[in-house]
C-alpha cells in the first residue's frame, strides 16, 4: 500500500518540479512576476488532453502542449511589453482569469465544468506506459532533461542578461540589449516547460477540469518558488519536495476532507507570509525578494 502511494507522491513532485523551475526562470531569474503561470500550465494540460482524445500520439500532443503554452507565454509578454513590476503582475493575473474563464465557458471545446475524462497514459514509440512506476521513470527522465536545460540557460550568458534585467532593466538597455526580446524569449521558454508539465499532469491524472488551473494552484507554485528562494533551482527542487510532502501529510490529519483543501491554502499562505517576513531569500536563495 505504501509503495504505490510513494510513487504517486513522487510523480506529483516531478510534475510540480518542472512547473516550479519554469516559474523560477521567469520570476526569479528574469524578475517577471508572472502570475499567469497557472494558465500556461492549464493551456498545456488542455492542449495535450484534447489532442489525446482525438487520437493524436502522445509525443506530438506533449510537444504541442509545450509549444502552445510557450506561444501564449510569448503573447503575454508581448501584450504587456510596456508594463513593469506590479502592473505586469496584475496584467498576468488577469490573463490567468481570462484563461480560466475560457476553459470554463468554451464548453464546445473544453466541456466546461464537466472537464475532460479518459485521457490515456502515454505511449512513446511503442513503449506503453501503463503503470505508475513506468510513468515515474518516464517523468524522471523528462524532469532531468528539463532541469538540465533550464540550468544550462540560467548559467549561460543569456542567464546573466536575465539577472541584469531583473536588477536594472534600463541599465541593461543602455548597454545595447533589447530587453523586450529577452522577455519574449524567457516567457516562451518558461511557458514551454509549464505546458509540458501540464501535459504530464493531464496524462497522469487522466481527467482535468478548469478548477485544477484556478488561482489556488498558483498559490501552491508561488509558495514553492518563494520558499526555495528566487533564482535558485536547488531551492525550487528542495521546496517542491517539502511543500508536496507537507501537503500530502495533511491528508492524515483527523479532519473532515472538506476542511483539508482550504486548510492547505491556509498553510501555503502562512508559509508565504513567514518567508516574506523572516527569510525573503527563501531556503536556498541568494537574492532578496523585493
Amino acid at each position, binding site marked *: 500500500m505504501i509503495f504505490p502511494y510513494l510513487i504517486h507522491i513522487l510523480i506529483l513532485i516531478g510534475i510540480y518540479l518542472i512547473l516550479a523551475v519554469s516559474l523560477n526562470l521567469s520570476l526569479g531569474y528574469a524578475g517577471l512576476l508572472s502570475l499567469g503561470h497557472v494558465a500556461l500550465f492549464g493551456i498545456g494540460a488542455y492542449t495535450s488532453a484534447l489532442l489525446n482524445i482525438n487520437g493524436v500520439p502522445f509525443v506530438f500532443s506533449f510537444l504541442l502542449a509545450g509549444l502552445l503554452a510557450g506561444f501564449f507565454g510569448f503573447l503575454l509578454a508581448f501584450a504587456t511589453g510596456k508594463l513593469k513590476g506590479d502592473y505586469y503582475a496584475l496584467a498576468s493575473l488577469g490573463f490567468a482569469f481570462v484563461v480560466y474563464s475560457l476553459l470554463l465557458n468554451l464548453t464546445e471545446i473544453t466541456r466546461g465544468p464537466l472537464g475532460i475524462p479518459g485521457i490515456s497514459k502515454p505511449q512513446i514509440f511503442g513503449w506503453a506506459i501503463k503503470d505508475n512506476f513506468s510513468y515515474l521513470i518516464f517523468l524522471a527522465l523528462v524532469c532531468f532533461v528539463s532541469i538540465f536545460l533550464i540550468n544550462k540557460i540560467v548559467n*549561460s550568458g543569456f*542567464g546573466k542578461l536575465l539577472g541584469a534585467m531583473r536588477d536594472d532593466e534600463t541599465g541593461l538597455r543602455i548597454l545595447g540589449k533589447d530587453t523586450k526580446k529577452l522577455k519574449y524569449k524567457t516567457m516562451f521558454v518558461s511557458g514551454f516547460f509549464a505546458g509540458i508539465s501540464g501535459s504530464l499532469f493531464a496524462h497522469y491524472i487522466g481527467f482535468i477540469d478548469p478548477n485544477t488551473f484556478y488561482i489556488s494552484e498558483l498559490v501552491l507554485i508561488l509558495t514553492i518558488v518563494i520558499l526555495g528562494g528566487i533564482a535558485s533551482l536547488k531551492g525550487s527542487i528542495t521546496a517542491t519536495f517539502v511543500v508536496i510532502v507537507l501537503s500530502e501529510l495533511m491528508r492524515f490529519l483527523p479532519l473532515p476532507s472538506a476542511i483539508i483543501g482550504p486548510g492547505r491554502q491556509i498553510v501555503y499562505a502562512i508559509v508565504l507570509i513567514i518567508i516574506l517576513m523572516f527569510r525573503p531569500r527563501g531556503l536556498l536563495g541568494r537574492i532578496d525578494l523585493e
Partner: protein
Amino acid sequence: MKIKNISKSFGGIKALDSCNIEIKKKKINAIIGPNGSGKTTLFNIISGLIKPDKGEIIFQGHDILKLEDFERAKLGISRTFQEVRLFKNLTAKDHIDISLSENYESVLKSVIKKKRSNRKKIKRILKTVDLDKKLGSYVSDLSYGQRKLLDLAIVMAKKHSILLLDEPVAGVNPKLREKIKEILRELREKGETIVLIEHDMNFVMEIAEFIYVLDYGKVIAAGRPKEIQKNKKVLEVYLGG
C-alpha cells in the same frame, strides 16, 4: 555627433532651449553649467531615456532620435550615470562579460554552444581600473570609488564610438580623481571621443579640450578651456562674476 535645436520642457520649465552642440571627434569634450542647466537632460535625450520636444541628433549618419535606447547603444553610444547604475546581484566579472558580449541574447546558442571563457579579456579590462582582484566581487562588496571605476570599465568594455560620462569624479577622493583623469587621458590617446559632464571645474579645465557651457538650457559659450575661463558670459552666469 551633431545636436541640432534640441528643446525639452518639463511642465512649464524649459530644461533645454534650442540647444546646438557639435561633439569634437577624438577629443575630450566637456559640458558644464550650474545645477539645472540641462546637462543630464541632454545626456538622457542622447541615450534615449527622454524624448525631446523638437530637434535632431545626428550620429554616424543617423538621426538617432528615431531609434530606441538600446539601438543607440548598439550604434556606439556608451554612457554612465550620475548615480552609479550597476546590477547588484552580478559580480564585477559578469558586468564586463555582459558589456563585451554581443551574442548572449540567443537562448538556443546559450544551450547548444560551449561556454567561451572571456576571463583573460575581462581581467585585462578590470586591470585598467585596478579592479582585477575584484573579479568575483558583487556590487555590495565594492566601495563607492570601486563602483565608479567598475562603471567606467563597463562603458569602456562595451563596443562604442563615443563615451558619455556623467560626473565621473563626483564624490571620489583625490587619489581616485587622479586615477580617473589618467584613464581618460589614456582613452583620449587611443583616439576615443569623450563627452563629460562635471561640476569639478579644476578637473574640467585640466582635462577637457573643448567645453560647452549651458545655462537655463541654452549654450551660452563654447570653446577651449582658456577661452571659457575668460568668457565674460561664463564668468557672469556660471562663475558668479
